[in-house]
């Protein structure tokens, strides 16, 4: 389990990350969302030890994260890059060895990954000779080499086609299934909503919300749609109900409390047939927009 405890990072006078705290639990896929300049990349760099913390603490399994522990973290940086002039297999073995694997173990791990990622026929080619899609796969392999204990991926889905997104998602699922915590950042909110167990929403260096996708959606304004018959203006007179929009036969409402719903439904039924009375839960994207609009 990875924990960030009031992590602060300043660049001169600018505070890029301002007392950020959240957790990435074992076996959970945690999505890290926020606009440009939210401080996601800076936060991830601090997790990986690439940038120093101005204040706060990062803990790995309850103890402050050491450089030794970080050797076991798989990382895909925002700025992609490997050795363009070196063959695929060679550089994966090298990176594996820097992560502490023996020469044999690194070779084994690299060969496995190359096969998994359908790069077997490219293993001796220089990276720069590969298509962009294949280069991206090698980059993924660089993050996954040496059976990482934690994955920190900065925008892993950017630039991938839909098939590649699916196989990437599948690959990450395999890791969480083994109990490995995965933290990834993304701008693609629908994707995050679909894939993630947990979410961290960050804006301007601060965490706005954390929790499961479901709990975050519930944080947004849950609305109700009532589809009935005829004139709906009577709804304006019901206690605890705010009418967002109303047209003959249909209305969009915001309820003050949950028990207003029962009262409202009884009243509606007494006035005529009710075709639909349903909760409209906002998407994560809606919640995100609402939160970051302020």
């Amino acid at each position, binding site marked *: 389990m990875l924990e960030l405890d009031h992590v602060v990072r300043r660049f001169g006078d600018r505070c890029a990350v301002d007392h950020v705290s959240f957790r990435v639990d074992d076996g959970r896929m945690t999505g890290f969302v926020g606009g440009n300049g939210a401080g996601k990349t800076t936060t991830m760099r601090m997790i990986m030890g*690439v940038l120093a913390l101005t204040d706060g603490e990062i803990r790995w399994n309850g103890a402050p994260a050491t450089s030794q522990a970080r050797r076991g973290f798989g990382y895909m940086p925002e*700025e992609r890059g490997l050795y363009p002039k070196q063959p695929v297999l060679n550089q994966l073995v090298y990176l594996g060895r820097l992560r502490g694997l023996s020469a044999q173990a690194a070779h084994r791990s690299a060969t496995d990954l190359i096969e998994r990622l359908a790069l077997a026929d490219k293993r001796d080619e220089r990276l720069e000779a590969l298509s962009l899609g294949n280069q991206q796969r090698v980059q993924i392999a660089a993050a996954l080499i040496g059976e990482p204990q934690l994955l920190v991926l900065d925008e892993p889905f950017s630039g991938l086609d839909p098939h590649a997104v699916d196989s990437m998602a599948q690959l990450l699922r395999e890791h969480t299934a*083994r109990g490995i915590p995965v933290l990834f950042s993304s701008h693609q909110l629908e994707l995050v909503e679909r894939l993630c167990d947990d979410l961290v929403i960050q804006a301007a260096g601060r965490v706005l919300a954390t929790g499961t996708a479901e709990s975050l959606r519930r944080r947004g304004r849950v609305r109700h749609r009532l589809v009935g018959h005829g004139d709906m203006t009577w709804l304006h007179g019901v206690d605890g109900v705010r009418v967002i929009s109303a047209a003959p036969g249909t209305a969009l409402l915001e309820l003050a409390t949950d028990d207003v719903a029962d009262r409202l439904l009884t009243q509606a039924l007494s006035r005529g047939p009710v075709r639909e009375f349903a909760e409209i839960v906002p998407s994560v994207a809606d919640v995100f927009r609402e939160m970051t609009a302020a």
Partner: protein
Amino acid sequence: MSTVTTTKPAPTPDLEPTGPETPPAPERREAAWRIVTAREITVKLRDRGFIVSTLVTLALIIGAVGLQVYLASTMGKISVAAVGTESTQLIKQAEILADQAGQDVTITLRAEDSAAQVRDAVRSGDVEAGLVRTDQGWTLLGNTDRDDTAATWIGAAVQAAALEANATAQGTSLDALTQGATLQHTLLSPGDTPRSVVRTATFFFGFLFYLAAILLGTSLATSIVEEKQNRVVEIIASSVRLRDLLIGKIVGSTTLALAQMLAFTAAAAIGLVAAGESKTLSQVTAGLGWFLVYYVVGIVVLACVFAAAGAIASRSEDIQSTTTPVTAITAIVFIAGISASGAAQTILSFVPLASTITMPTRIVAGDTTWWEPAASLAVSVAAAALIILASERIYRRALMQTGGKLSFRQALKLTD
């Protein structure tokens, strides 16, 4: 009710982290810098540019030495045209005199029938010189150039023959005439290395040092900027200490540069022996021990400085401007090292980089007390360590700066 409680020692807290992670892996224990060094060397050895430039330099050295051998084989070899037995005797005598003086001179005699034929042979360029008898004695004929070898040794032979003839005419002998005319040359410290040898060695190692700076400098700085340029640096920085990355690269590049120097020096040495200049070689190698020690230490310090120059660059395009000051310093060290003397030399022999040439010069010349070399080496090693630490800081701080090269001052101002 009485209860007897025995206090058990609290169980030792389990220090092993629990959870699905961190399996104790005995394999995870290899010095990171060695992995970096190994990659550095293998990548370089497969690099066509490196191989080609090394081979071209080797070819140039071998070519230069070959030219030397050719020139040496023609130097001191002359043919002289002459008439009669007397001149034949003189020419043989000239060769003997040259040999006694330690000079490698071969004079080939071309016997002609008349003085006119001798003139023709000289004019046609078939022989370097011609020897003819005149009323006043002997005349050495040349076509367009005076031949120094012929003039010196045939001249000496003519002089000796004339002296001998004149002595006999005066009723005495040559030995009697030349008695007391010999000059003995006695060295007071024959065991010490001659100053001329010290000078040769100083120049030789000074030049080698400068050559190494050119070979090593740009290649090391480029190798250090490589990860920053292709942005693999974030992955590396999250796996190993940056110090290990820098040390690995310094060791790798330095090893290769020293191997190159060794190959070049070996080629030159073989050439010197082949050219019959083994005497020059033995003069240079006389003080080799100390020069080698300082050379290796000096190269390491130099490599650290170049590493710092690489650390402040963001792209290989910046390398040229960040390494220029370092190359300039090396040139100054080279010139100051071979020209300094007296107090300046003593001071320079304690300054890192400058000591590379000045201290061994002083040691070989016998000017130092025992502690001076030790102190000077310690200063150099300490400087190397400090520069590596400073380079690591600069490198770490400039890591995320991709906007262009920094100044040393800017780099040190940045935070980690």
